[in-house]
C-alpha cells in the first residue's frame, strides 16, 4: 500500500521512515470479545521528503504474512521516522516503540461482485466478521449464512428475526431494493461508535436474504434471492399461508429446544447460490427433509428440488427467482465511517489474498 504524510508546518522536513512492525487488531468471537492481534510483517527504510504545507510523495509499505483466510481489523504500525528541519534541528515523528492504529483492512476471499463503494464497502466489515477465519467460496458462503444468523464477532449490535417486521428491503412497483445504508445505520459503526450494551435490530426474511446476498458479493460469491410461496396460494394475505417445522429465530439461543416453534408464512425469501439454497433467518430443527436428522442451524446448501420445511402432503412450495439490487439513498449514513479514505490513501483490499488496488 502507499502512505502519504502531510506537513502543516511552513518549513520542509526530510528524513527516513523505517518500518518496524505491523499487526492487525481483529475482533474476537462473541463469547470472547477481547481484542486479538494477527501479526504481519513489514521491513525496510525509505527516504521521505515533506515540503512545507504539503504532502510527501507516496511511500511504499509492503505488508507480508497476511493470513490466507477472511479477516478484518485495524492495521497497526510501529515505525521510526527521524526528520530534519535544518542542519542540527532534528526530531523524531516515529511511534516511539508503540503501535499506531491506521486503517480498517478487510481481507476478503475473492474479488467482489458488483459495486465497491461506500456503503457497499462498509458491509465488508460485517461480512469479514461473519466469515472470519474461513477461505474458499463453499466455506465462506456457509459461514456467512451462520455468521449473519448468529451475529458472529458482533461489535455490539446484533440482528433478530421477526417475520412481520420489514425494515430494509423494499418493493416498489416491481423494483426490489435493499436500503443498505439504513441497515448499516442500525448495525452501527463497529470502529468508532460502540454502545455499552447489545442493541438488537429486528428484521424479516427479505432483509436477511438481501443482506446475505450482498455479503456474499463482498466476498466474490454470486447469488440471488428466491421467493418461496405455497403452490396455489397468492402472495398476499390472507390466503396462501403455509406452516414450517419448528424454527428458532435468529437472535435466540438455538441450542434450546424450547425456543423452537412452528411459523406461519404467506411467503418466504431465501438465498440461492451455485444452485443451492441458504437461509440465515432461523435455525431449523430438522433438515429440509422432515424425515431427516436434527439440524438446529440455519439452512445452507439445501437442494432446490426439495420441500422447504413443509409437509410434502401439502403440495410443498413453489420457487420463483427475484433479483435483489443494492439501493443507495441520497446522503451519508447516520453512523457513517469511511472504511478507507481512498481520495488520499490508496484503497487496498486483499482479493484472493493477493494485494489488489481498487480504483
Amino acid at each position, binding site marked *: 500500500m502507499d502512505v502519504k504524510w502531510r506537513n502543516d508546518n511552513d518549513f520542509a522536513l526530510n528524513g527516513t521512515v523505517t518500518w518496524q512492525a505491523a499487526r492487525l487488531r481483529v475482533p474476537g468471537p462473541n463469547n470472547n470479545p477481547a481484542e486479538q492481534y494477527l501479526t504481519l510483517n513489514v521491513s525496510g527504510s525509505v527516504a521521505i521528503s515533506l515540503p512545507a504545507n504539503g504532502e510527501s510523495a507516496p511511500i511504499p509499505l509492503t505488508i507480508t504474512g497476511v493470513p490466507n483466510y477472511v479477516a478484518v481489523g485495524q492495521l497497526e504500525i510501529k515505525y521510526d521516522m527521524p526528520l530534519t528541519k535544518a542542519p542540527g534541528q532534528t526530531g523524531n515523528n516515529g511511534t516511539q516503540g508503540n503501535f499506531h492504529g491506521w486503517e480498517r483492512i478487510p481481507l476478503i476471499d475473492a474479488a467482489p461482485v458488483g459495486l465497491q463503494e461506500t456503503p457497499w464497502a462498509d458491509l465488508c466489515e460485517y461480512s469479514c466478521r461473519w466469515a472470519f477465519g474461513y477461505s474458499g467460496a463453499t466455506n465462506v458462503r456457509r459461514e456467512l449464512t451462520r455468521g449473519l444468523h448468529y451475529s458472529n464477532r458482533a461489535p455490539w449490535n446484533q440482528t433478530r428475526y421477526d*417475520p412481520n*417486521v420489514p425494515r430494509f428491503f*423494499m418493493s416498489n412497483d416491481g423494483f426490489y431494493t435493499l436500503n443498505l445504508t439504513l441497515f448499516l445505520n442500525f448495525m452501527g459503526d463497529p470502529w468508532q461508535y460502540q454502545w455499552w450494551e447489545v442493541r438488537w435490530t429486528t428484521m424479516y426474511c427479505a432483509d436477511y436474504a438481501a443482506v446475505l446476498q450482498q455479503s456474499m458479493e463482498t466476498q466474490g460469491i454470486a447469488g440471488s434471492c428466491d421467493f418461496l410461496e405455497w403452490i396455489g396460494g397468492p402472495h398476499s394475505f390472507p390466503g396462501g399461508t403455509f406452516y414450517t417445522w419448528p424454527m428458532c429465530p435468529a437472535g*435466540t439461543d438455538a441450542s434450546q429446544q424450547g425456543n423452537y416453534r412452528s411459523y*406461519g408464512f404467506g411467503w418466504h425469501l431465501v438465498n440461492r447460490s451455485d444452485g443451492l439454497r441458504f437461509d440465515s433467518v432461523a435455525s431449523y430443527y430438522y433438515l429440509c427433509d422432515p424425515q431427516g436428522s436434527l439440524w438446529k442451524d440455519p439452512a445452507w446448501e439445501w437442494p432446490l428440488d426439495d420441500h422447504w420445511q413443509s409437509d410434502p402432503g401439502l403440495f410443498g412450495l413453489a420457487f420463483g427467482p427475484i433479483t435483489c439490487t443494492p439501493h443507495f439513498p441520497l446522503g451519508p449514513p447516520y453512523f457513517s465511517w469511511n472504511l478507507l479514505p481512498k481520495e488520499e490513501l490508496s484503497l487496498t483490499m486483499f482479493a484472493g489474498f493477493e494485494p489488489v488496488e481498487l480504483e
Partner: protein
Amino acid sequence: MLSFSLVMYVSAVGADIDSSSFWAVEIIEKSTFSVLSAKVRDASTRPRPGFASQLIVKGDLAGERKGAFRSTFSATAVSRLGVRGSDGVDRMMSAGSLDDYSSRSPSGIPVGAESLWSVRDGRAHVLVGAKCETGTVLVHLDGTDDKGFYKPPVHDWTADQQLMERFLRYSLARIAGRRLGNITTSSMAGASIPSANCERSNAKFGDLRSWCTAKGWSVTENKDLGVLTVKRGATFAVVPMGTAWVKWDGATWTKMSDVVMEKDGRVMAPKDVLDRLNGM
C-alpha cells in the same frame, strides 16, 4: 517540536433530522422517546420514477425510563404511486401469517383503511394499509440473557401503543397529503372552501375546518389520538386523521373513499365526507 498529520478524513456523525419532519419530531419527543433521525422525502426527489414519498423516523428511549432498559421507536409511512391490492388497499410486504395480530387498534378507533396490531417477543408492532399508503411502527425492547441471546424485559405497553397510534395517524395523514395538488378555493358540499385534487385518483378534497366554519359546525381535536370531532347541535361525527373511517352520530364506523389527510397545515377531507356532513 515538529508536527505533521497523517492524511485521513472521517465522516461527521450527527443527528439526521430535516426541518420538514419537525412535526414528527415533536410528536415523538412529547413521549418518552428522543428522535435520532427523521426524514421526509417526496416521490419527486427519488432518482427514478415510480418511487414513493417516504417518512422514516428512528428514536431512542429518553427520560426517566432510559435508565431502566433500552427501547427503540422506528416508523415508516410510504405513499406509493399506484394501488396494489385488488380491494383498493395497499399493504405492507409482511411475510408472516399474522396469526397473532389484531385488527382492532388499542383505542378502538381505526387507522388507515385497515391496521393490524401485535405485542409479542419484546416488541409492539403495527402494520397499516390505506388507499395509496402503507405504514408501520415498531417499538422494540433491548435485552440480553446471560449467554448473549435476545431476552426482553417485562414491560407495560400501554403508553407505547398510544404513541404508536397517534404517530401513525398523523404520519399517514401527512404522507397521504403529499398526493394532493395545489390548494385552490372552490365550491364543495355547499361552501366555498380551500380544496385540492388528488394527483393519483383525481378525487376532490376540501378543508374540513374551513367547511365547518362556513357551515356553523365546531371542531375539536384530540391530539393524543389524532382524532377530530365535528359537531353542530346534537349532531356530530368522529373524523380521525389518516383514516378512511368516519363515525357518524356515534353509531357505526363507515369506510369512506379515502383517508383524511393534512396538507399545508390544513385537514383535507374527501369530498364524500363533506357531502355527508352537509346532508346531516
